[in-house]
């Protein structure tokens, strides 16, 4: 199974530039069609399952608008 992840978007920093949408290897990002942020941009959002938490969207984002999480195995006795 590929690693599981998710992102959170700091909506008010996003400018809807779509660079992350284009760069996401899983194609799970889109601009929210019916939501606007405080500056009048459509912020990006996860549209379906399949985010791996690879972090590529955060690496290309000019606004540092994205928070990325990934699930990892933790072992305990």
């Amino acid at each position, binding site marked *: 199974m590929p690693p599981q992840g998710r992102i959170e978007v*700091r909506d008010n920093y996003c400018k809807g530039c779509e*660079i992350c949408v284009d760069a996401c290897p899983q194609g799970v990002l889109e601009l929210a069609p019916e939501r606007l942020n405080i500056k009048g941009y459509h912020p990006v959002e996860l549209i379906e399952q399949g985010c791996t938490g690879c*972090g590529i969207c955060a690496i290309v984002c000019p606004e540092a608008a994205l928070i990325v999480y990934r699930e*990892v195995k933790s*072992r305990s*006795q």
Partner: protein
Amino acid sequence: MENVTMEEQLVYDRPESMASVQTHYCPGCTHGVAHRLVAEVIDEMGIKDNMIGVASVGCSVFAYNYFDFDFVQAPHGRAPAMATGVKRVLPHRFVMTYQGDGDLASIGMGEIVAAAARGENITVIFLNNANYGMTGGQMAPTTLPGQKTSSSPGGRDVEVAGFPIRTAEMLATLDGAGYVVRRSLHDPKNIRMAKKSIRLAFETQKHGLGFSLVELLSTCPTNWGLTPVQALKWVEDAMIPYYPIGDYKVNPALKELKI
């Protein structure tokens, strides 16, 4: 018995050295990527409280609002001179200028050459977006042959306007330069390489190895008349062939560093 459970790990969040404000940059402008990388490196080195930035004139004139550390603002092209003064008075602070190509390679060309020749122990982040972004996309010394801008509507004619200047290569010839490289901000691999170089530039300063400069190929989607994604492609297809990614001067001591 060993239990394996899944637990969520933070992969990325906004660096602390970035102020909690929205920037005025156009959507998709990679000035923002450069800001982010600088802030990440400063966080990782733990030098935020020891930093002094010098903002220049151009779209990045408000850089002092976007980083959460001390900043001053220099007249057009004069950031290396101001940084020289700051660094000589406060040699234990990390001093960085952040300059565009119009600022650094046009009106400020004399300042940057002299600072590099003197081997000033400062770090220069040099954003090359092949035009004067702030004032409406006029031709800069870095504008490519044939490139259309608001002041070269027929494309840059090298017979009249001369040839674009490869700043990194030129400054690397000066003995005072410790670290001079060119990187690009157009894709994840190149952005990672750019971050590593920004780190090495600050390490150059930390170890007193002289002048350091990272030239970053950057987009100006607004004045280029392209979408942000098309602009990234234009960096790759048009800019990199003229401005190759490369290490033009690396002080041998940097190769020994373990980071």
